[in-house]
Each structure stands twice: as structure tokens, then as C-alpha cells.
């Protein structure tokens, strides 16, 4: 039981990062960037390729982050900025276009077989009462905590964070008050790309492998995590991520692995219908601080 909770929290940490990546864009701009699922995948491939090429693991994570962030900026320039004033469905569709391209590129560059890293690199485990925790799991949890803390610092304490929150409240008023809105929007995409890329490398290290389909599998489920946490309250994800990770692992153990989509998406639809503001949202969906 304790073992399942540890495994669930590790998966949940990755969910938290990807869901934060989704809600950085969704919470601030009200746009669902579906390409994030595949930025996450590409980040993982870049990181694992570096590890296989003999680079140290601590370098793989920033590499995946930067790669995904660069792609996120391209997505912003090509797929979001020209469609900013279009109905919200339009940028959603154009980011699907990017998602299709990225998945196709990964398939042709790395092939459809999983890209594997030798797992003797980190197969040390530490006893923890009746359970044990792997060195990779510790790394995943630690890196996630550091990244979330870093994001919280940027959003709450820096000039950029004030800009993000101003744009989230009202695009036009923010610009009238001198916030360079386009720069701030690009920064939101960069932050979201950094998070997605890091999460990709972490999931790759955790499973010692990555495939081009991990975006459509784990990446999309992070949307469900974002919704459960509350779309307009990005910090709700900090509760929803670990919760959904543990719920999913418990489902796999006690109900069979094929049931997990049922449970994860079922929870998402339930929250959308009965509590659209998410678990941590206030009494009304439109009140309170969003970011």
C-alpha cells in the first residue's frame, strides 16, 4: 500500500508539472495548447538521447527543458499569436496541428520502438519501512518540488509574475497600464515549455524509456489533472497532481491497467459538470486570483 502511494506520488509529480504547463497557458490566456502533450514527449526524447550519448543526467533535464521551451515559442508565434482574436476553438485546432507535426517528427527521427536508457544507472533503492523508494523516484520528486517552487517564485515575486497576473485579469487594461503583453505571453509559453520538457525527461528516466506516444497517453491525462485542480486556479494542480497519480496507480493495482483511462477521465468529466471551478476553486468560477 505504502509502495503504491510512493509510485503514485512519483507519477503525480510528473502530472503536476505537465498540468502546470497546460494551466500556465489556459489560466492566463484561456487557450488550451494541445501541443504541450507533445512538447512533453519531445523533451523526454531530447533528455534521454543526451543520456544515451553519455551526457550526465543532471544535464539531460535542462536540455529537455530548453528544447521544449524553444518549440513552445514557435508554437506561440505561429499557432497562437495570429489567432489571438479568433474564437477560442481556432488556436486549439492550430496547436493540434503542431501536436500532429511533433509526433510525426519524433516517429521518423527516433522510430516507434521505445528509446531505452540502461536502467542500472539508477537502480539503487532505499528501504522505507515496509516499502522502498528508488533513486530515480527521489530525483523525480526532488526536481518537481524545485521546479514548482521556482515557478511560484517567478509568478508571485517577480516583475514577470505581476505581468502574467495582470494579463490573466484583463489583456487590454494590462496594456494600458504599461505591461508589454506580447512579451508576457511569450514568457508564459516559455515557462510552460520548460515545465513540459522537464516532465518529459523525468518520465523517461522513471520508466527508463520513452515512446512517441507518451504525449497522447500521459500528456493528455494531464489535461484531466488540470481540470480537477481548477482551470482558473493554477495552484489547485498541486493537490490534483499527486491525488490523480495515486488514484491512477491504485486503479492499476486493484482494478487492472485498462481501467485507468476510465477513472482519470471520468473524474475530469465529473469535475467539469459538478464543480467547474475545480477542487480548490472558490464559490464561483470567476472570482479570486487566478495565477
Amino acid at each position, binding site marked *: 500500500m505504502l509502495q503504491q502511494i510512493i509510485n503514485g506520488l512519483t507519477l503525480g509529480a510528473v502530472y503536476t508539472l505537465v498540468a502546470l504547463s497546460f494551466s500556465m497557458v*489556459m489560466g492566463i490566456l*484561456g*487557450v*488550451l495548447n494541445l501541443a504541450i502533450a507533445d512538447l512533453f514527449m519531445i523533451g523526454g526524447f531530447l533528455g534521454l538521447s543526451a543520456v544515451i550519448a553519455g551526457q550526465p543526467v543532471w544535464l539531460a533535464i535542462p536540455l529537455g527543458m530548453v528544447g521544449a521551451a524553444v518549440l513552445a515559442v514557435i508554437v506561440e508565434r*505561429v*499557432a497562437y499569436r*495570429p*489567432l489571438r482574436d*479568433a*474564437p*477560442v*476553438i*481556432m488556436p*486549439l*485546432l*492550430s496547436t*493540434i*496541428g*503542431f*501536436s*500532429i*507535426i511533433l*509526433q*510525426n*517528427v519524433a*516517429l*521518423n527521427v527516433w522510430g516507434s520502438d521505445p528509446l531505452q536508457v540502461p536502467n542500472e544507472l539508477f537502480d539503487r533503492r532505499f528501504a522505507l519501512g515496509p516499502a522502498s523508494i528508488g533513486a530515480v523516484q527521489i530525483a523525480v520528486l526532488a526536481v518537481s518540488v524545485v521546479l514548482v517552487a521556482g515557478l511560484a517564485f517567478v509568478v508571485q515575486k517577480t516583475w514577470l509574475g505581476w505581468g502574467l497576473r495582470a494579463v490573466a485579469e484583463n489583456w487590454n487594461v494590462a496594456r494600458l497600464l504599461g505591461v508589454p503583453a506580447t512579451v508576457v505571453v511569450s514568457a508564459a509559453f516559455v515557462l510552460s515549455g520548460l515545465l513540459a520538457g522537464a516532465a518529459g525527461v523525468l518520465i523517461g528516466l522513471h520508466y527508463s524509456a520513452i515512446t512517441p506516444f507518451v504525449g*497522447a497517453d500521459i500528456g*493528455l491525462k494531464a*489535461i*484531466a489533472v488540470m*481540470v480537477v485542480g481548477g*482551470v482558473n486556479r493554477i495552484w489547485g494542480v498541486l493537490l490534483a497532481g499527486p491525488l490523480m497519480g495515486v488514484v491512477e496507480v491504485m486503479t492499476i493495482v486493484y482494478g*487492472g491497467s*485498462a*481501467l*485507468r*483511462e*476510465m477513472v482519470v*477521465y*471520468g473524474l*475530469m*468529466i465529473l469535475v*467539469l*459538470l459538478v464543480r*467547474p471551478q475545480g477542487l480548490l476553486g472558490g464559490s464561483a468560477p470567476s472570482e479570486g486570483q487566478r495565477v
Partner: protein
Amino acid sequence: VSTYVAGLLAEIGISLLGGLSVYIVLSTGQLSLGNAAFMAVGAYLCAVLTVVAKLPLTLALLIAAAASGIIGVAVAFPALRLRGIYLAMATLGFGEMTRSFFLNFELTGGANGFHGMRPVSTLYIWSWAAGILLLVVLIERSRLWLELRAVNDDETAAGLVGLNATRIKVGAFGFSAAVAGIGGGLLAHHRLYIEPADFSFEKSVELVLMVILGGSTVAPGALVGAGLVTALPEFLRFLVEWRFAGFGALLILVLLFRRQGILDRSVLRLFARRKSS
């Protein structure tokens, strides 16, 4: 007609039905990212009816369409509370849940898939596809479609002039699901083997892609889109590995420069004028 061309035409006909199902809901301003789920319901139900219950195919298709339509209406009622992106996310979740259901449902083979169907002719597939395309085109010329567009353009205003927006949106969802169900049933009897992976999120995205590329303001747009997405890779064999990247890029280009898709009213009028002169 060679078997190769006949097979390709059959695929286009089935894709057309899937595309039309997306087109119908999109016309009310609702984006569904889960229409492959309705195809799955139609495919599995229709296949079980012909293989296990030994019903004739046409009857089985009608039952599958009705069942799929009822599920569509059942999904539409809670979905009324959701708009735009939230509806897209909910339909995405519904699609993945349906796929997961068939993955677990041992009576239809679970992950092993289901087979035993008898093949159908391309002509039979196209009589359904053309018939439903004609039906949608006819509806487009009726008052009902004006009401549908009104709900799409401004739901509040449509309600103020006395239109029942709820009935129109739910009806569109049900009709869309029924059309997808027929497409699924035909798919099962064309491919002769179905598995849950045939109805994944990628399939739902492909259906949306057809409508957006082909033209999202007129029903024949789905025909252009279905032909493009299904047949173009066959002619560009050298590009076969990159075809999805090509379609992704095409999707972005269309959204940026020609939001209504390849076919729209003015192109259709051009064709009509050439024919009459």
C-alpha cells in the same frame, strides 16, 4: 474498378460519414474531440448484430445508428453546460473513456478486437455515404439549418427570438452521433476486423482535420476533406512517412489563411455557374 481503387473509395466513403458527424456538431458551434467514440459504438454494435445475432446488415446499421444517436443525446444533455474548450476537453475525455470501455469489454474481444463480419461492396458503402451527404445538404437548405446557424452565431439572441437552443444543440449532437455510428458500422464491415485502437483520440482528431481542411461552412467540405486526408497519401507515396506532418502543417496554414477551409459557398457557386454556362 480494381480492388485497390474500390478499397480506397470505400475508405473515403466511411471517412466522409465520420467527417459529416463532426461537421454537424461544429455547425452549432460545438467542437467535439471524441466523435471516434460514436464510431466505436456503431462499429461494435453493428458487428455484434450481424455476427452474433445474424441480422441483415442494413437493419443492423439502422439499430446501431439509433443506439449511437441515443448515446449522443445522453452525452449532449450534460454537455449543454459546457462551451468551447471545456466541451472539447469533456468530449476528449468521453472518447478516451469509450475506448477504455471497449478495451475492457471481453464480450467484444477486449484488446484482441472483434472479427467475423462479412464484407460489403463499395457501392453499398457509398449509397449510405452519398445518401447522408444529400440529407445534410437538404437540411442545409431548410429553415432548421437557419435556426442551427443562429444558435451558432449567438445563442442568447437565438433564444430571445424564440428558438429552442437546447433542442437544437441536443438534436445536432444526436444526429451527429447517429451518422458517426453508421460510419463505424460500415467501417467494421469493410475492414472485417476492429479493435479499440481504431477509435483513439488520433481518429477523432483526423475527423476534425477533414472538416477544417475540406471546408467547415458547407457539407460537401467534408467530402473534399475525406478525399484529401484518405487519398492524398496514396498519390504521394514518397512522402508517406511525413504525411501526418504535412497534414498538421496544412491544418495550421488553413487556419491562418483560409479559416473556412478549401470549399466554401463562393467556390460552390463558381462550380454551379460553370455548369450552367
